[in-house]
């Protein structure tokens, strides 16, 4: 039997990869994909603890996270489309109107 800590370390590695991507990538769409990676890492943690304790609440939480991720993706991509329509770019370095 694989210890739970292996799954948790995999989730931590996945979360850090996602965070690294959010910090270094300039394409707004790829940044979104990296956020999805981080959400999946959180899901993995929920499911690992659910297996350890024999509680199904972790599965329910993962289910809600998937639903919220779907909502987040649809709204986020709509915003990306709207920004692309008005500015012609999806690079987050060139979208700086609200910076000051």
């Amino acid at each position: 039997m694989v210890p739970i800590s292996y799954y948790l370390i995999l989730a931590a590695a996945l979360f850090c990869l996602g965070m690294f991507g959010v910090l270094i990538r300039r394409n707004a769409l790829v940044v979104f994909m990296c956020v999805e990676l981080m959400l999946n890492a959180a899901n993995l943690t929920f499911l690992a603890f659910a297996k350890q304790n024999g509680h199904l609440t972790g599965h329910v939480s993962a289910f809600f996270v998937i639903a919220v991720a779907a909502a987040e993706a649809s709204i986020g991509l709509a915003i990306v489309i709207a920004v692309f329509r008005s500015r012609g770019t999806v690079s987050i370095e060139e979208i700086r109107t609200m910076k000051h």
Partner: protein
Amino acid sequence: MNIELVLFGAFALLTLLSAGLVIFAKSAISSAMSLVATFFFLAGIYVLLWAHTVAVLQVLVYAGAIMVLFLFVIMLLNLGEETSAGPRLTLSRILGGAAAAGLLVVLVMVIWRIPAPTTTFTGAQAVASGFGTLPAIGQVIYTQWLLPFEAVSLLLLVAMVGAVVVAKSRI
């Protein structure tokens, strides 16, 4: 060397590899395809965690619905390869890598200190209680988590209307 450890190792390696490809791929479309692969391998890990229902949802909702949305937007915006995607080592990238590596070290240290579980949940118990099956999860959702479930359905409705309102130029 048991089969669970072998499968976990293989799926974990492939997950991390394809997650790395998501970040370092040059075009957005190969990032999206690597993300689909990541979701499939993660679904394999979920099955190892006895979460069959969530694994199926992962493939249906994430690799199906959400990634189709991503691919549609990438093709709609007609994004080519990034022009300045060379291996530049700027200060922000170094700082980002250092922050991610630092967080990983801290997390691994914390996970290492988690005390061993006092009670064990065995496979026989899981089979007996229907752990991870759709009826068992439905039982929990529709009794203990009914209000959050309804709130999530409302959230999805708001997101649907909001996406149309934001993305459409003229209503």
